[in-house]
Every structure is written in structure tokens, then in C-alpha cells.
């Protein structure tokens, strides 16, 4: 055996990397020659000599971990920040084209406010696994979002959706408050929209859901949709193209009725469409759309119904024609609109 092979063997022994067979071989070599034994002892001594205790104090690992944790946390926040911001950018760009120049400064303030609120909201609800996203609009704001599966949603003013960034393997689930139009791509996983009280299940279609104050209304523009209560999985109705239904509280869903969805979904083209809509609902919609405060002096009028279409008209035009229909007047008092008797 040449010397380097022998030293390899010795090294394996002193470093604790020797196998059973190799140990036998080494024992034999050490016994057969005093020179071998000397080399072995030297190497063994060197190994011993290099013993070394780390007496430098260990840092506070908890503190180091927290420092580290903050760093990765900040990184995750940044990505969320980007999502929110890119949404805002899109929405701002889309809006800047339509908004009147004199309103732009107000709009920038609004945008800044939205960033702030979104961040507070997103960060509050943020968990590292899996990423949970909330997209929402404030009054006067509409936005479009594309889900990870390619499906699209258009959010009306003052609405929100929540969902996991990556859908699960079995369902695509979205929680909605407010009004949204969904354009769902076909996929083997059902797309489920949950509101306060209703569950809507589809495979691939276009439909609109309006959900406020424990009432959920659905309109199907295309395809087929199953619509029912969150609390009762068996009480469903099935809707096809150009049908609508609604649920109130935990009452069974209304039988589908035929409607003209293209006409009723005017909000997708920035129109306001009211079809036998109660005054209170109209006023709430106007508050969200124009970001105004409107007060109704005579509460008895709340359930009066009105049918009207407004095509991107200013708030004063809208209120004038409503008041004309009802035979009342309105006044503006420090930025608030008041509908008088």
C-alpha cells in the first residue's frame, strides 16, 4: 500500500469516517510496522491539537430571528403592495380617460386613500400561507380583476371580493359583498360565489351578482348557474341565459324569471339602470356611484319604485328627474343632498 493510501485510511480513522472493514485493514497495517504507527499517532495528535472551543459568545438568536422574520415579512408585504398598486394603476388609467380634468386632483387624493386603506386591510388579514387576497372598491370606483385561472370579475362601486390567490384543486371560491359581474372560464373545478346568504355555483359562464343587506340577486347573461342558500345546500334553483332570481335572508330562492340582462346590467357601461327599483335602493346606489351623501326627509317614500335609465349623467340631472317623478324637491346643504317632502 502506498503512503497516500495509508494516510487516507488514518485520516478516515481519526475523523470517524472509517468503515468496519477498513478499520481491520488499518489495525493490521499498524501492527505490522512501527513507522506506520508513528504516522498514525502524529495525525491523531494533530487532530487532537486542533481541538478548539468556540468561546465567542453566541448572539441572541431570538433577536436575530425577529430581525430576519421582519425582513421576509417586509418582502412579502412588498409583493402585496405591488398587487394593490397595479390594480390601482389600471383603474386610474381607465378612469383618467373618462374623468373630467377638474375632478383629477380629488381623484388622486382618493387613490392615495385607497392605497392606504387597502394596505391596512390586506396586511391585517395577511398570512404567509396561502396568500389571501381582498380586492375592493370604494364609492365612485369600479375595477376589474383577473383571477389566477383567467376568469374575470368587474366590481361595481363600494364592493369587495375575497379569495385565495391560488384556487384549490377542487373548487374556485370567491366571497362577495356588493355587486360584481363574473366572466368565468370553463374548468373542471366549479366556480362558487358566496355572499352573506347565497351560494352560486357555475362551471363557466357570465353572470352578475348583487348582494347587500342580506339580499342577493343574480342575473345570468350566458350559460347555466345553480343558485341557492348558503345554509341549505338542497334548496337551489337553476338559471339559464337572461334569467334572474334572488334570495332574501334565509328564505328560499325566487323562481327564475326572464329578464333582459343586457339592459339591466347597464352599470358595466357606466349607466344607471333602475327597473321598478325602490327609492331607498336607488339612493344607496347613487351614494356609491357618485360618492355623495343623500338624505330622504320623508321615510314613507322609501319603498316607492322607479324605472329609469341614466347614461353617465351628473348627479343633479339624476336627482332632478327622480324628484320630478315623485313630485318632490331637493336641496344641497354643505355638500349633502336632501330630498324634501
Amino acid at each position: 500500500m502506498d503512503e497516500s493510501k495509508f494516510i487516507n485510511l488514518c485520516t478516515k480513522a481519526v475523523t470517524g469516517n472509517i468503515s468496519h472493514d477498513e478499520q481491520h485493514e488499518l489495525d493490521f497495517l499498524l501492527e505490522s510496522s512501527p513507522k506506520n504507527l508513528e504516522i498514525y499517532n502524529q495525525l491523531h495528535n494533530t487532530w487532537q491539537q486542533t481541538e478548539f472551543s468556540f468561546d465567542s459568545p453566541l448572539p441572541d438568536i431570538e433577536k436575530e430571528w425577529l430581525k430576519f422574520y421582519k425582513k421576509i415579512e417586509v418582502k412579502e408585504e412588498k409583493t402585496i403592495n405591488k398587487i394593490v398598486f397595479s390594480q390601482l394603476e389600471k383603474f386610474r388609467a381607465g378612469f383618467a380617460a373618462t374623468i373630467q380634468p377638474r375632478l383629477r386632483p380629488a381623484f388622486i387624493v382618493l387613490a392615495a386613500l385607497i392605497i392606504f386603506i387597502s394596505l391596512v386591510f390586506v396586511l391585517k388579514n395577511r398570512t404567509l400561507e396561502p396568500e389571501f387576497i381582498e380586492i375592493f372598491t370604494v364609492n365612485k370606483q369600479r375595477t376589474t380583476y383577473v383571477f389566477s385561472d383567467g376568469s374575470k370579475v368587474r366590481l361595481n362601486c363600494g364592493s369587495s371580493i375575497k379569495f385565495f390567490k391560488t384556487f384549490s384543486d377542487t373548487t374556485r371560491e370567491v366571497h362577495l359583498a356588493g355587486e360584481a359581474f363574473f366572466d368565468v372560464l370553463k374548468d373542471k373545478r366549479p366556480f362558487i360565489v358566496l355572499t352573506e346568504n347565497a351560494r352560486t355555483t357555475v362551471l363557466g359562464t357570465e353572470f352578475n351578482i348583487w348582494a347587500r343587506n342580506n339580499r342577493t340577486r343574480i342575473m345570468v347573461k350566458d350559460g347555466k348557474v345553480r343558485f341557492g342558500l348558503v345554509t341549505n345546500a338542497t334548496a337551489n334553483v337553476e338559471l339559464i341565459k337572461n334569467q334572474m332570481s334572488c334570495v332574501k335572508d334565509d328564505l328560499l330562492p325566487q323562481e327564475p324569471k326572464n329578464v333582459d340582462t343586457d339592459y339591466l346590467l347597464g352599470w358595466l357601461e357606466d349607466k344607471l339602470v333602475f327597473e321598478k327599483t325602490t327609492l331607498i335602493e336607488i339612493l344607496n346606489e347613487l351614494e356609491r356611484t357618485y360618492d355623495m351623501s343623500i338624505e330622504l326627509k320623508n321615510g314613507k317614500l322609501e319603498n316607492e319604485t322607479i324605472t329609469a335609465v341614466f347614461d353617465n349623467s351628473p348627479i343633479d340631472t339624476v336627482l332632478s328627474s327622480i324628484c320630478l317623478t315623485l313630485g318632490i324637491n331637493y336641496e344641497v346643504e354643505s355638500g349633502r343632498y336632501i330630498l324634501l317632502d
Partner: protein
Amino acid sequence: MNDYSSYSDEYLVESIKSSNVDAFKVLYYRYYENLYHFLCLRTNSIETAKDFIQEIFTRVWQNRGDLDKNKSIKAYLFRIANNLVIDRFRKRRSRQDFISQTKKNVTDNSLESITEINLAINKLPEKLRIIFILSRYHGFKYSEIAQTCNISVKTVESRMSQALKILRDELS
């Protein structure tokens, strides 16, 4: 928080892959001391060691999706550590600088444990030094060193015996 401290590295890696921060914290605690001593020895600076550890774990976290539970996470951590040290060497242009830096640090007492032995180890050629340190001070088996340095076990064997021979001549 789940108690992951008794879990194997493999299990931790699986959890970390699905972005489990609690599991990652256990990994951090499990290897902090080991990495710290390794880096103090290699860089002779407590501050650099601390910075490098943060950098190592940041990289692991960022690339958590690529982790493989069948590969040693310990080897992976030390490989990043070693790469950081080598990069630092390159920036210092020559190893001579590094050794004089070491001497300077000794006189500064910035790291009291630096001794004659340490200097001898630092004089080893880079390829041998890393292997010696991993084996001597971190209890790495040859196979683990091979994974860390991305070389064969045979190469580890020969480099380890070369290192020991050089140290023997240096210290006798």
C-alpha cells in the same frame, strides 16, 4: 404554534416548501449556532457571520419552492455559507489580505478564540480548509462534505488527508 422541534429535517423541509414559517423558525434555530461558528471561523468577524446567516436564510426562504427533502438541508445551508465566504474572498482580491486581516483581528481581540491553530487552518489552501473545518468543527461525515462542496467522496478523502498532513507539519 405547532411544536416542530422534534421533527426531522426532511419533515421541516416539506413544511417550509408550503411556506410554513413556524417550521422555518425551527430550522433557523437548529442550524444557527453551527453556521455561526463556521462563519466566525471562516471570516473572523462576528458581524459578518451574523450578516451572512441572515443572507443564507433569506436565500433559502426565497427559494423554498426548490427545496428537496431528499437532499441534506444542512449541506445546502453550509454550501450557501461557503459560497458567501468565497465571494467575500474574491472581493478581497487575495488570500494574503485575508490572512493579514486575520492577524489584525487577533490583535484587535475582536474574536478572542482566534489562535495559532486558527491561523494554521487559515493558511490551508481554500479547497482543503473548508473540508477540514466541516469535518473537525461541525461533525460532517465525508458524504455530507461531498454534498456541501459538490465533489465526490473520494475527493473529500484525499483532500482531508492532505489537510491533516499539512497541519501536522505546520503544528509540530
